C-alpha cells in the first residue's frame, strides 16, 4: 500500500487505532456491527460487480459473450474481442481525439484559471468583486441552455465538426478560477513583499514566486478537467458530426448501436479500453480528484 493512501482524513478515525480504546476491542461484535459489515460488503459487491462483469465478459469470445450463465471472473481470458473492436471502429483515432480534446482543455483550463485566479486573489483593479461574481454566476448556467447558441456560434466561426468546437468553449472555467483564487489567497503575502524588495516586478513575482507554489492547485484543476471531459458525451454528440471527429464515449455508443446484442464482448472491450486512462487517474490522482470534487461542494 502506498504511503499516500495512508495519510488521508478517514484513517484518523478512532476505529482504526485500537490502542486508544483497548476496553472496546475486547467486546464481542454487537448485532449492529455485523449488520454494518454485511451492508458494506453488499454495497461493495454491487459497486464492483458490474465492473467485474464488464471486464470478464470483454474477455469472452464474441460469439458466446452473451451466453448464460454470465461470467464474473476472467478464468479463461480470450482476447478476440479486443482485436475485433479495432476492426469495427477506429479505436486509435477515437483515443487520439479524446486525448487531444481532453488534454488541451485541461491545459487551457489550468493556464486560464491560474492567470485569472491570481488576478482575483493578488492584483488590485476596479470592479474586481463584480467581475468575480459574474464569473461565479456562470456556474449556475447549465450547458444545455447555452448549447444551441454555442452550436450556432461555432458554425459562425467556421468551426463546426472540428475538435476545436469541443475545446474552445470548455476552456474558460468558473470553478477552476474559483479554486485557483482560493489557492492563491491561501499563500502568504510575505513572498511578494520580499520579492518586491529584491526588485522583482509584478510579472516576476507571479511567474517565479507564486506559480511554482500553486502547482498543487493547478493539478486539481487539471485532473477535474480530465475526469469531466474524457467522459463527456452531451457536447460531442451535438458539436461533432463526422465519425473522424468523434471522441471515445460517442464512438462506443455508436458501436453499440451498430452491433446491438450480437457480440457484446467487442463493445465491452471498447468500454474497458476507454476506462484505462480514468483508472490511471483513479490510482495515482485519487486524492487530488477527491479534494477537487469535494472542494466544489463546500464553497
Amino acid at each position, binding site marked *: 500500500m502506498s504511503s499516500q493512501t495512508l495519510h488521508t482524513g478517514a484513517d484518523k478515525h478512532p476505529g482504526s487505532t485500537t490502542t486508544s480504546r483497548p476496553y472496546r476491542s475486547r467486546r464481542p461484535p454487537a448485532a449492529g456491527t455485523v449488520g454494518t459489515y454485511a451492508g458494506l460488503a453488499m454495497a461493495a459487491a454491487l459497486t*464492483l460487480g458490474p465492473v467485474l462483469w*464488464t471486464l470478464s465478459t470483454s474477455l469472452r469470445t464474441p460469439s458466446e459473450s452473451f451466453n448464460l450463465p454470465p461470467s464474473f471472473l476472467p478464468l479463461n481470458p480470450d482476447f478476440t474481442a479486443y482485436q475485433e473492436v479495432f476492426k469495427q471502429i477506429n479505436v486509435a483515432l477515437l483515443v487520439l481525439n479524446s486525448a487531444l480534446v481532453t488534454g488541451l482543455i485541461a491545459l487551457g483550463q489550468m493556464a486560464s484559471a491560474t492567470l485569472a485566479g491570481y488576478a482575483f486573489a493578488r492584483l488590485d483593479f476596479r470592479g474586481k468583486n463584480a467581475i468575480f461574481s*459574474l464569473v461565479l454566476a456562470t456556474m449556475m448556467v447549465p450547458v444545455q441552455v447555452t448549447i444551441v447558441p454555442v452550436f450556432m456560434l461555432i458554425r459562425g466561426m467556421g468551426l463546426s465538426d472540428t475538435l476545436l468546437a469541443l475545446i474552445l468553449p470548455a476552456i474558460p472555467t468558473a470553478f477552476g478560477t474559483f479554486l485557483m483564487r482560493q489557492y492563491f489567497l491561501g499563500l502568504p503575502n510575505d513572498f511578494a513583499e520580499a520579492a518586491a524588495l529584491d526588485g522583482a516586478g509584478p510579472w516576476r513575482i507571479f511567474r517565479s514566486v507564486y506559480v511554482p507554489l500553486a502547482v498543487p492547485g493547478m493539478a486539481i484543476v487539471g485532473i477535474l478537467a480530465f475526469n469531466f471531459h474524457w467522459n463527456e458525451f452531451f457536447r460531442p454528440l451535438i458539436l461533432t458530426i463526422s465519425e473522424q471527429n468523434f471522441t471515445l464515449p460517442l464512438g462506443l455508443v455508436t458501436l453499440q448501436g451498430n452491433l446491438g446484442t450480437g457480440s457484446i464482448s467487442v463493445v465491452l472491450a471498447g468500454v474497458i479500453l476507454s476506462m484505462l486512462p480514468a483508472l490511471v487517474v483513479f490510482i495515482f490522482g485519487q486524492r487530488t480528484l*477527491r479534494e477537487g470534487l469535494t472542494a466544489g461542494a463546500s464553497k
Partner: protein
Amino acid sequence: MTTTSTVPRQTIEPSAARRTFVERWLVMIFLAPTVLGMALFTFLPIIGSLVLAFFRWDIISAPQFVGFANFASLAQDPTVRVSFLNTIVFVVVAVILQLGIALSLASMLQARMPAWLRVFLRSTFFFPLVLSAASVSIFMRYMFNEQFGVVNWLLSLVGIPAVPWLTSPTASAAVVVLVYVWQNFGFSFLLFLGALTNIPKELHEAASLDGATGWKQFSNVTLPLISPTVLVASVVAIISALQVFDQPYVLTNGGPGDSTRTAVMVIFESAFQQLEFGKASAIGLVLTVLILAVTALQFRLSRRFVFYQ
C-alpha cells in the same frame, strides 16, 4: 543625470508608477482568456437563448417572431409536459436514493475496521465517479437485457421471473434511476464521509455517556452537526439530476413511448432533430429557472434549518 540627493525619491517614484502601469496591463492580460471566453461562450449564448426563445427558427429560413408561443406550446405539448414530469419524478427518487445510500454507507464506514479496509471501501464507492456515464449506460444496458442480462439471471436464481427492464415504462424508468444512482452516490458519499470524519469524537462519547446511542445519537447529535453538508449535498444532487441526459439517451433513448424522456432530452431533440431552435431555447430557459429556484431555496433553507457550529 541625477544628483545624489534626489536618488531615493526618483528611483522609488518612477518604479512605483511603472509598477501600477505594468500591473494594470497584467490584470487585463490575466483576465482576458477567462473573461472574454465567458463573454463569448456563456453570456452571449444566454442572451442568444433569451432572444431565440421568442422566435421560430429552423436555421434554414429566416427567424420569425412568435412572442410567447414557444412557452405556451410547452404547456400544451404532451411530450414536453411528460418529460418535465419524468424529470421531476426522476430527481425526487434518484436524489433520495443517492443521499440515503451515501449517508448510510458513510455512517457505516465509521465502524471499527482495519485502515486498509476503510481505504478499500472508500475507493470502491468512489470508483464509478471516474467512469463515463455513456460507458456505464452501455454495459448496464446489456446487464438489464431481458433475455440474456445478468440481472434477470440473478433474479431467476431466487425464482423471480424475467423483468422486461428496458421495454416496460415503469421498469425502464427504474433502470435509469438505478444506473444514475449507481454512478453518482459516491459523490454524496465523499461529502458525508468528510463531514462525519470531522465531528469531534468527544461529542459522540459525551452522547453515549448520556445514554444516547444508535439511532437516537445519529438523529440528535450526528445529523444536526452535518446538516450544512446534507443541504449542500442535496442541492448539488438535485441540480445535476435535473440535467440528466446521458443515461436515458443511451439506455432507452427516452422510451418506451416517452416514459424515460427527460427535459434535456427534449431540448436536444427539439433543437437537433426537429430543428425547432426557439422551442429548445424556451425549454432550456425553463430548466434554468428551475435550477436557479433550487439554488435560491438552498440559501433560504440554510438560514433557517441548518445548524452551524
